[in-house]
Every structure is written in C-alpha cells, then in structure tokens.
C-alpha cells in the first residue's frame, strides 16, 4: 500500500506541546475528580432541616428605624407649633377700676369720639347702670341726628284701667362688673394718646342705631297690663 508522509513541521509542533506550560494548561482542566464520603448527604440534609431560614433582620430594622424617625420628626414639629401658639403676647391686659378721664392736647380726635360717647352715656342713663357721670371735658359739641318721623296712632288712655302689674322679682345684688378696660403695653405702642373707653353696652358704636322695643325687653322690666273699662 502507498505510504503518506506528514508535514515536515509536525515534529516541531509535537515538541512544542511537550513544553511544561502547555502540558500544564491541558492537564489542569482534566485533573481527576475525587469522591466525598457516602454519608455526607445525610449530614447536609440534617443540617438543612435544623437551620432556621435566614430572616432579613436588616429590613425589619430599617422599617423600625424609619417609623421611629417619622414619629420623632412629627413630635418635634408638634412641639414647635404648640410653643408658637402659646407664645406670650407683648401686651398684657389688666381689668381693673377705670381711671379718671385723661384730657389730652389732641382735641379733634376727642371731639370725634365725643359724639359716640354722648349716645353711649344717654343709653347708659336709660338703663340705670352704675356708670359714673362723665366729666365736662367730654361734652364739647355734638351734631343733631335727624330721624325719620313715623306715623303712629294716638294713644287713648281714657277708658283704660290697670288690670295687672307684674313686677319681676329683684335679682340678687351682684357686684357690678367693671366695664372699663385698661391696656398697658410693655412693648410696641402705636399711639399712647389714644383714648379707649367702653362705657355701658358691649358695642357702644352701634347703640345709636338700636331701637328699644318689645323685642328688646329685659327680664327686669316692669310690665303693666291695661284693660278697657
């Protein structure tokens, strides 16, 4: 049979593979595999059954820390807002006896308020309160107030007799409450010369517009019932 010849560089290539590093590279991937003990699986199985599952404690810790942080921030914010609401005011208000009226140099300002004070004091007299009479310093000038005339029937008292007089019981004497407010400002004062008085009614500015009638009867008013003869 005919013989075939290999390439001439074949021997050189074979000698190249005989190199230690090339043999090492070939054989390190084919090293013999060793076998462990036969009962190792049972040991692994028992250890897996006994070990508890890994709990991500760090997740629970992170959640707890975030909740604590939120509570802390809300608590601090609440305390700060609460302190702002309860912050002491600069001006203090003391309710006591009314001092004497102070006459100042600014008479035009007083004149404007005198009109209102006149109406207030007239109303005070009608209601028999214990407000002291004002001094002459407030009575300067006042403008007449024109009111519309109402057509009302004339009252005929000839044939009327007193049927019943209802006198309400007198209430227990109560110490009259002072209706004078004195404001003492320790800090900012807009106008020291401003005179503030509140005599008598709770809203003296609107007293001129009120009309006293049956709807405004106080419980202390004396009622007289009349009948015709």
């Amino acid at each position, binding site marked *: 049979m005919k013989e075939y010849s290999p390439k001439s560089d074949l021997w050189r290539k074979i000698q190249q593979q005989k190199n230690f590093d090339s043999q090492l590279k070939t*054989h390190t991937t084919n*090293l013999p595999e*060793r076998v462990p003990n036969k009962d*190792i699986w049972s*040991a*692994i199985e028992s250890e897996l059954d006994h070990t508890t599952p890994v709990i991500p404690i760090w997740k629970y810790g992170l959640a707890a820390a975030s909740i604590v942080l939120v509570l802390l921030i809300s608590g601090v914010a609440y305390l700060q807002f609460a302190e702002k609401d309860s912050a002491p005011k600069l001006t203090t208000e003391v309710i006591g006896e009314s001092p004497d009226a102070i006459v100042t140099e600014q008479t035009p300002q007083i004149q404007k308020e005198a009109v209102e004070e006149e109406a207030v004091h007239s109303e005070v007299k009608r209601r028999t309160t214990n407000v002291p009479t004002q001094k002459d310093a407030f009575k300067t000038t006042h403008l007449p107030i024109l009111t519309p005339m109402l057509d009302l029937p004339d009252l005929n008292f000839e044939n009327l007799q007193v049927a019943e007089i209802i006198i309400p019981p007198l209430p227990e004497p109560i110490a009259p409450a002072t209706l004078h407010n004195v404001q003492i400002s320790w800090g900012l004062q807009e106008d020291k010369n401003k005179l503030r008085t509140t005599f008598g009614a709770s809203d003296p500015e609107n007293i001129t517009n009120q009309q006293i009638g049956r709807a405004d009867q106080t419980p202390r008013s004396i009622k007289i019932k009349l009948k015709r003869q």
Partner: protein
Amino acid sequence: MSVQKLDADLLSRVIKNDRSAQFRLFELTKGMLYSICFRVLNDEDEANDVLQDSYVEIFQKIRTLSHPEALLSWMKTITIRKAINQNKKRIHFESLDNIHPETTDDFDAWFDAEVLDQAIQSLPDGARAVFLLTTVEGYPHKDASELLGISESTSKSQLHYAKTLLKKRITKLLQA
C-alpha cells in the same frame, strides 16, 4: 458532570427547597467541589467538613443568585473561600530569598493529569494554594492575593516557585 444537566427547571426546584432537586444538584457537583476542597486542604476529613458547610450555605443562599447561568462558578467560589478560611492558619508562604531551587529550563518529559495531581499534593501549603487558585481555577493574581491575604508580587513569586517545584517533582515521579 455535564452543564446541560443543570437546567432551569432543576434550579427553580432547588430554589423552592425541593429536597430531591437539591440531592440531584449535589450528585452532579459533589466531585468537582470535593476535589477543590481536598486539593486546598490536603486532608480528607477536613475536606468533607468544608464540603458539607459549603452545600448548606449554597442551598440557603441560592435564592440570592442573580445570574443562574453562573451557578457553577458561584458554587466554586463559596467552596474555595471556605476551604481557604479553614486552612488559613496552616498556610505559610515560605520566604523565597533563601531558597534557590534547581532551574529546570530543559524540562523534557511527557506527563499526564494523574502525575500532575500527585505532584500538586506534594507542594507546600502556600505555593499549592497560589497554584490552585491561579493555574487550576483561573483566578487572576489580584483576586488570588486578596483571597489569601498576600500581595500580588508574593502571589507571582509563589506561582513561579510552585511551577519550579512541580517540574522537579514530576521528573522524579516519572523516573520512579
């Protein structure tokens, strides 16, 4: 061990703590991992203990595996780390300043894997560890030095020392 046998179905069942699937994975990979343990530790009992701990950790943490295709390398990494930690107290890197091994540049012998395996077992612990990590497992010197707690230069010099010793040992084994 065929990689094709490690299909996605087996892996999903292992993640679900299917005991039969776990056993199947153990049977497919036990030889590979035990060989690594034995070569690093050079002791059968210690290698079995490390193998057991490695499989327990593998089955506990397999859910955290982000790339299922890297399962084998991931398992190898866990096993190698445990073996090195177990042997860390015994591993001693000889100072190469006073050692002048006979140079065998003209190594002229054919050897097989069995002879190589026997020669690897006769290496010192430190040089053997460096040789196994870099040449057998393919770790770069940077990673191998981090695992062993040495510098890169020490890793390179220890590898050169290991190869020189292997040549000498293989020549003696072939002559015997």
